């Protein structure tokens, strides 16, 4: 039987506020345990939550960036359950009236086509703390630094039909939340994480199959693997005559398996009700328009502009606009290079991206500034250096040896464009390789490459390749 996969994602984006959603404690990552938990975060008797309006602004930004409805009135609700890292015995979240309602965004599939994915809602909530198992004497420690960190939970419609589509959607959300600067997008630190609802159904069937919720997916790779694994498992279960049960499953990256999780409470009744400690969040049209006016250019608009202004292919434009720092870097390179948009695109998405990737570095940590790279490309464009020498210069700039001009100067890498000098080299090569000359003249064109290589080698790569070609052709003919 042919199966169709149905996937919906719940993405938790940690909002990049300085302080927590309901207290003044810092949200900075990595502090010693429980040093960033104030009396409110600890859930001491008598404390009360006060909403951080920065988080509200960020949620509005997200709503606008995804063409979603921004609710004029939303309500915080308590989700009640007991767990040691949940200090109050309830999580403040939003249930019936979330701050962001329905919306949609486009994802680009591998074949270049575009698919619309629905957003059901996005709501504000506080994160829980962390339970640190296996501490001293087998005890479990509680770190409440993370408790009260603001999260935006973004719930999609079950619109995705493969793990690849799920990844494309997740990357798109990642790109949007980082573009609009509401989330640092750091998946290792858990600032951007995802639960996936996965089910399968026979192709052509309307109603959905029973879904399983996959938890703990904190990298794009894991999401893809876990979904594929779960799809296989569900198909095996059904084809083996069994039934998929609705449950929460944990993805274990080390063992490469998903397994049923013990539920946090025996009965899963969260007894939601509006939090009487917080007023409903009222957002007027003026506030929404003020946020809209300050929205940065979004990925889709930037992609269109890159294609238009820089005459880039949609592939190039897609790669370069995938993150805002990358796009900003690219534009700065073009500016410094004084044009050469295509050449700049090749360098940014080629050598630069490749080296960053190899070194596991973020573009923000790149030792070669956009100005330096642009300056180098300028030298390629004005024939001071060849593309090949440029690779050498790039390497030197990466190592901190200065900008392109000073590397060219100190290493004497200036391209040789003096026709006389190149002719001398060519004459030498022709004189020293009579056999190859004979071959060429008898019609073996392929051997031409050999001569080019020899000349370039003799010039230590500095000879202008176009000139070398021309002179070689002329001399070999005679």
């Amino acid at each position, binding site marked *: 039987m042919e199966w169709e996969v149905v996937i919906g994602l719940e993405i938790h984006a940690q909002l990049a506020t300085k302080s927590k959603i309901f207290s003044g404690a810092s949200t900075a990552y990595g502090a010693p345990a429980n040093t960033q938990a104030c009396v409110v975060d600890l859930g001491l008797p008598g404390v*009360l939550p006060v909403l951080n309006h920065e988080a509200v602004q960020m949620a509005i930004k997200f709503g606008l960036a995804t063409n979603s409805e921004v609710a004029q009135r939303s309500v915080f609700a308590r989700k009640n359950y007991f767990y040691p890292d949940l200090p109050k015995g309830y999580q403040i979240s939003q249930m019936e009236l979330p701050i962001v309602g329905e919306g949609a965004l486009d994802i680009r599939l591998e074949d270049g086509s575009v698919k619309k994915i629905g957003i059901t809602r996005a709501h504000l909530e506080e994160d829980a703390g962390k339970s640190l198992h296996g501490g001293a004497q087998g005890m479990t420690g509680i770190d409440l630094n993370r408790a009260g960190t603001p999260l935006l939970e973004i719930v999609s419609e079950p619109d995705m039909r493969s793990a690849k589509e799920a990844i494309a959607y997740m990357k798109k959300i990642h790109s949007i939340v980082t573009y609009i600067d509401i989330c640092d997008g750091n998946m290792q630190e858990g600032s951007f994480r995802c639960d996936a609802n996965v089910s399968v159904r026979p192709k052509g069937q309307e109603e959905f199959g029973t879904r399983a919720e996959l938890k703990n997916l904190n990298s794009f790779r894991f999401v893809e693997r876990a979904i594929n694994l779960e799809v296989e498992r569900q198909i095996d279960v059904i084809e083996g005559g069994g039934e998929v049960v609705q449950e929460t499953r944990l993805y274990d990256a080390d063992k490469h398996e998903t397994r049923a999780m013990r539920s946090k409470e025996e009965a899963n009744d969260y007894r939601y009700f509006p939090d009487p400690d917080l007023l409903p969040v009222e957002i007027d049209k003026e506030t929404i328009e003020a946020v809209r006016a300050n929205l940065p250019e979004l990925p889709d608009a930037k992609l269109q502009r890159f294609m238009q202004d820089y005459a880039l292919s949609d592939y190039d434009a897609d790669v370069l606009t995938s993150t805002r720092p990358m796009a900003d870097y690219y534009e700065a390179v073009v500016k410094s290079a004084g044009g050469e948009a295509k050449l700049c695109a090749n360098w940014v998405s080629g050598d630069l991206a490749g080296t960053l990737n190899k070194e596991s570095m973020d573009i923000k940590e790149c030792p070669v500034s956009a100005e330096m790279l642009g300056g180098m490309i300028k030298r390629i464009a004005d024939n001071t250096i060849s593309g090949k020498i440029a690779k050498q210069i790039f390497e030197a700039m990466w190592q901190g040896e200065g900008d392109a001009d000073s590397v060219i100067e100190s290493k004497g890498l200036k391209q040789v464009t003096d026709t006389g000098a190149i002719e001398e080299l060519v004459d030498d090569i022709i004189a020293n390789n009579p056999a190859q000359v004979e071959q060429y003249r008898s019609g073996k064109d392929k051997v031409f490459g050999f001569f080019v290589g020899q000349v370039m080698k003799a010039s230590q790569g500095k000879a202008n390749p176009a000139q070398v070609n021309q002179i070689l052709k002329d001399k070999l003919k005679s």
Partner: protein
Amino acid sequence: MHNKTLSELSAALQAGEFSSTELTQSYLERIASLDPQVNAFVTVTEQPALDAAAAADRRIAAGEAGPLTGIPLAQKDIFCTEGVKTTCGSKMLDNFISPYNATVIEHFNAAGAVMLGKTNMDEFAMGSSNETSFYGAVKNPWDINKVPGGSSGGSAAAVAARLAPASTGTDTGGSIRQPASLCGITGLKPTYGRVSRYGMIAFASSLDQAGPMTRTAEDAALMLNCMAGFDGRDSTSAQRDVPDYTANLANSLEGLTIGLPKEYFDEGLDAQVGSAVEAAIREYENLGAKVKEISLPNTHLAVPTYYVVAPAECSSNLSRFDGVRFGYRCDDPVDLEDLYKRSRGEGFGAEVKRRIMIGAYALSAGYYDAYYLKAQQLRRLISDDFKRAFEEVDVIMGPTAPGPAFGLGEKADDPITMYLSDIYTIAANLAGLPGMSVPAGFVNDMPIGLQIIGNYFDESRLLNVAHRYQQVTDWHTRAPEQFK
């Protein structure tokens, strides 16, 4: 000294008749000798009180004193007090020393008031007789075989027994007004949001409100001046200016319209209490007020509505008492579930458990609409009753409680009868309105109170109305024989 009102003490301190240290010492001595009879205090903070009194004396000497500087006060043990045990009347918090001060406490500290100690209360403010306290029942100073009312029973008894000139209480369904009535003192529950709830251990967040418990309306005005105000740490606190509540105390009541809800004078009311209230109304007519019969047709829904809303909120509010971070933890838990079950099972008393269970039930899937949501709708109806009434009248009057103080143990095993002792006070909480109880007579030698309910943020008028009555009556000046 102890027979002076707060305002008289304030004047005497300023005039240098005695020092705050002498005054504080005198109250501490009274507490030491007399409190064992009433059990009003859970904690007496003797040394901090003397330190605060010494500081107040310096402030008075420097001419920087306000009306509450150097005044000894008793604080309900529901307010978090830094470095001092804050129990909320529960075994659960018997070991809890708060690391921070409630906003109300901060206000009193800034004013230079002296905290004598923390007063006994029904466990987590759940009770109408002060019998649910882990620290034992408080006794009514007018008859130590009777209850003082609750949940602010310790605060009421402390003022009635002259163990403090004034105290603080909190009122979720009548917990300031009902004990004030039963102990013959003046109690004011302000409009919801008038006094910050920050640091006040939550029972039912949408109903809880702190207020003063004093001998006179004038003293209540002085206390409220200090307690009221917007607090950025409480999202439900009202962003509006605090008037000087003493400013209008002496205003004439000529032309005041008093509404008498017929539902407050029905068969559930003790006939003698009814007569006393009617006598009080006649005094008001003598003072120039007009009386109008009104109807609050949804009055009968107040108690059932309250007993869904309050338990629902408390079931969630009390979840933080889990034995993990503070408070009572059971011995040798074998696993997490055991830790939760036994810490909460052993740490909470029966009434608290009963309400948590009612509340969890009312909020559970499948019952939410029928109970919690329905209760919210009824709450709106009850508020609308008052809204209509205040279009016609300035204040509403009636009995505070259906009868005088009942015997210790008399209703302890009958929760429904117990719950009905708040039948006249609960509606003001559901609507968020301010309400007062002022001493208005005696029934069988036990004091009873007149309740005055006002419109939103109309505390000034309530205090004015109460004060003028106290100028022509002396019920509020009476003291129980052993505590004179």
